[in-house]
């Protein structure tokens, strides 16, 4: 696990960012309440990269919305920094799967990235942060473009930059690379790991791609079933920094991949 980045006042605070204890989510439905998430227990530590992997329909997105304060739990306890979640917590930002709907199409790239900062910081500070964030995702030459002028991968990077500009303690990412081609996906995965090392932020990264979950994660939580339940959590003891070619050929990588396939397979047949 990575230490928190420099300049963070971490000594006074406990290491725990999120903790869920038997948290369930139910939605009202015409034939009674429908359970989406079932007794989720989960922890996220500072600087940790947690991936959540599972097939579709297991409530992965709902889990992310639960942590992001967009969907309340109906049972159990969800805490952020030791306090119960009550709406979107400060310093926690969601990066959504559908970037074309999540970007403000009428704003330029730079003004999209500035969105979360407007009115909260002086103008010059916002401009500096926008430039920093765009440099991190390598989009500094596109700051005056509109989102619809960019490729899908670039639009998703704009959304990531918008989240990064806030200098969040936690990024919640919902299958952010799901719609991208393999090459773009690999490049963005490495960018994300580089960003984690540069910023010290924590990540919860939801995906249905087992290899992606192993490649990115410090730990992988397996979510299966409907309602979704977290079966087992696997620590990823692969060397860092990860490398697209070397890491993916390590025997341990293949072992972990096999392990997770097994865990998911059992979960879906149960």
């Amino acid at each position, binding site marked *: 696990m990575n230490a928190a980045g420099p300049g963070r006042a971490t000594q006074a605070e406990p290491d725990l960012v999120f903790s869920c204890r038997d948290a369930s989510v139910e939605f009202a439905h015409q034939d009674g309440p429908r359970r989406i998430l079932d007794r989720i227990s989960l922890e996220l530590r500072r600087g940790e990269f947690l991936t959540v992997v599972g097939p579709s329909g297991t409530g992965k997105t709902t889990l992310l*919305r639960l942590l*992001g*304060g*967009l969907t309340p739990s109906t049972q159990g306890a969800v805490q952020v920094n030791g306090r119960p979640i009550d*709406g*979107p917590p*400060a310093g*926690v*930002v*969601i990066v*959504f799967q*559908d970037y074309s*709907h*999540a970007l*403000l*199409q*009428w*704003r330029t790239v730079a003004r999209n990235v500035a*969105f*979360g900062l*407007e*009115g909260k910081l002086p103008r010059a500070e916002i401009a500096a942060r926008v430039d920093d964030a765009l440099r991190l995702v390598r989009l500094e030459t596109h700051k005056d473009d*509109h989102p619809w002028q960019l490729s899908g991968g670039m639009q998703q990077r704009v959304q990531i930059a918008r989240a990064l500009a*806030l200098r969040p303690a936690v990024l919640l990412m919902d299958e952010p690379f799901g719609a991208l081609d393999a090459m773009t996906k690999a490049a963005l995965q490495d960018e994300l790991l580089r960003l984690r090392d540069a910023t010290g932020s924590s990540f919860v990264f939801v995906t249905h791609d087992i290899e992606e979950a192993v490649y990115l994660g410090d730990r992988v939580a397996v979510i299966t079933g409907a309602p979704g339940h977290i079966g087992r959590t696997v620590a990823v003891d692969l060397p860092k920094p990860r490398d697209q070619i070397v890491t993916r050929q390590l025997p341990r990588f293949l072992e972990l991949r096999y392990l997770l396939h097994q865990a998911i397979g059992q979960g879906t047949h149960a």
Partner: protein
Amino acid sequence: MPDVGRFLARANWPGLCTIALGFLLWELLLRAGLAHYQNLPPPSAIAGGLLEITRNGQLLADALHTLRVVLVGWAAALVIGVASGLVLGVSATLRNYSLASIEVLRPMPGIAFAPVALLLFGFSLQMELMVVVLPALWPVLINTMGAVAGVHARLFDVGRTFRLSGAEILRKVMLPAALPGVLVGARLSLTLALVLAVVAEMVGNPAGLGYAVVREQQAMRPDLLFAYVVAIGALGVGLNAALTGAVAWLFPAAAGRLREAA
């Protein structure tokens, strides 16, 4: 000077040629005696009439009256339409309660209100405004409501994850997202407002361009009658061009999307 050059380059020359050809044909048919109507003046006579009413100031006075009615009525329709469209777009409950009433009121021909307006306000500006505002309201209201209700749910999530207040989400997310729809409504409403103002002046308040048409008809001056009809057309084209220009200047991004929609 470059402005004039750009204007000349952008003008729709083939389209203008068709119009000119139409006038020429009209003139020739009448002069050659191939078409014969007692009260149909040739374009040259209409041009003469236009010159006459321009010189004696009638046209300006009448046009200013109508323009004032159109702009005031349109502005009122915009304010009421955008405000109620926003509320109805946001609240599904309110929409459920009021949509039936809207669907009953909306298809009513607006001009049917003219006698009511006459009874209420007599021959007055208020009467004209009532006839203009009620029907011109619907395109703005319906388009605003649809645009606001159609804003993708994800944008609310984005507003919330960045911890914006409800008012901030309304101002920075929903209004801009709905703007192209609002502008479509505003444009339809402006065209409608001119038509209604002219009709209100024809059947009600004896003032402005609409009344001028009736007046010259009763005075047996078809050349002046047609001159006023041309002036009304020119006012419509001018208002539409002014609105399009203003939108392009104020909201360049929305104007681009609006052109695609048109």
